[in-house]
């Protein structure tokens, strides 16, 4: 199990702004280690964010996303105190789900 994500969700006007910092190596499969051996690819492939059971963001990621990715997005239709749930699945099937309450 990977390290937890850091999630901040905040009301800005009638929109909810969500900031997420994920902890992931995001190996592209093209780097080599000091012995010259190729490091196998391992990167986040799917990201989903839900609020009150509704999907508010869904993304397919590839190897061009950096290590320890930072994600920021906004959506409408939520209020302070609601919970935002973010989850990812990487190319090796590893998963992580974290949540945060929306601050006023």
């Amino acid at each position: 199990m990977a390290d937890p994500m850091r999630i901040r969700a905040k009301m800005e006007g009638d929109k909810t702004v969500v900031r997420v910092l994920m902890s992931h190596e995001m190996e592209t499969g093209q780097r080599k280690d000091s012995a010259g051996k190729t490091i196998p690819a391992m990167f986040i492939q799917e990201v989903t964010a839900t609020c009150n059971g509704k999907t508010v963001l869904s993304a397919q990621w590839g190897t061009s996303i950096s290590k320890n990715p930072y994600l920021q997005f906004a959506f409408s239709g939520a209020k302070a105190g609601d919970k935002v749930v973010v989850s990812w699945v990487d190319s090796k099937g590893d998963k992580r789900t974290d949540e945060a309450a929306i601050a006023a």
Partner: protein
Amino acid sequence: MSRLTEFLHGGLRVCASGCTALLFSVAPPAHAASENVAQVGDWKGIGRAATPAEVRAWDIDVRPDFKGLPKGAGTVARGQEIWESKCATCHGVFGEATHVFTPIAGGVHSEDLKAGHTASLLKPTEARTTVMKLSHVSTLWDYINRAMPWNAPRSLSIDEVYAVTAYVLNLGSVLPDDFTLSNENVAEVQARLPNRDGMTMDHGMWSVKGKPDVRNVACMKGCAVDVKVASVLPEAARPAHGNLADQNRTIGPVRGVVTAAQVAGTAPAVPSQGVAMLQLANKGACLSCHQIETKVVGPAFREVAAKYKGDPKAFATLIAKVKNGGQGIWGAIPMPPAQSLSDEEIGKLVRWVLDGTPQ
């Protein structure tokens, strides 16, 4: 008493009375200044001793042993509020920012917290973060207190500095979310820092006797004695910039190389066969008595050539004559042996004479 003296006396009296009045007014500060002089050396009357309050305001440093750390406390949660309102613009919500400053948090793993050394510092590809490098909590606390926020340094209260310090360490996975940092538990937090043992003092940056960070050794052994010319400009390229001799100054130890002959477009000065042979004849002192066309003391070279034309033994005969000297064929005056010429040189000269001294 002259008028002048009377005037001076009157003037002095006025002056004396004026000075007395003046002395009364300046005496107390002058006295105070003379007390200060004892503290500040020769700077008489300049400045004054700082008051204890001023020293307190200036003396804000916090040392690694936490000397100078004021009492106070702050929670991670409070630190997050301050961070997101005052710090996140530049440092990023999670201290991850790279667009303004280097990241504050990240790069620390759970093994580092046990080891006391941040392993990722040894990886050249890893971006360095503040929490990765931090070896003393006091440094972080002092820096936030002294210099942050950048646009309003010293604007945070003591408790707010504790809170922000706690939050930065929380972002760096050192402290849990519900932690309260205070002057009482700061030493305990110090013992949790990932790079707490990463600081070394065994080097020249700390002590003159320490190991320097460069290892330059003056050897002064086996030095090269001769200059070896490793490469030269090809002949064709030498005149590319005109005659270098004309372009260098004529004072000082260095002169420009003459490239004038090549500049003029003529072939390099390789002497023709005739000139070379004449030089050789001169070396053998032949030209004292012989010339090419004219009889002087001995016969002209052309005469010799004409006399021996068609004689197959001429070559060997003449070599013997030049080498050992001769007398009687052309007159009574003897020819001395050519001692300064080698056999090969004599052979060349004789061949040249018999061939009719070509140019």
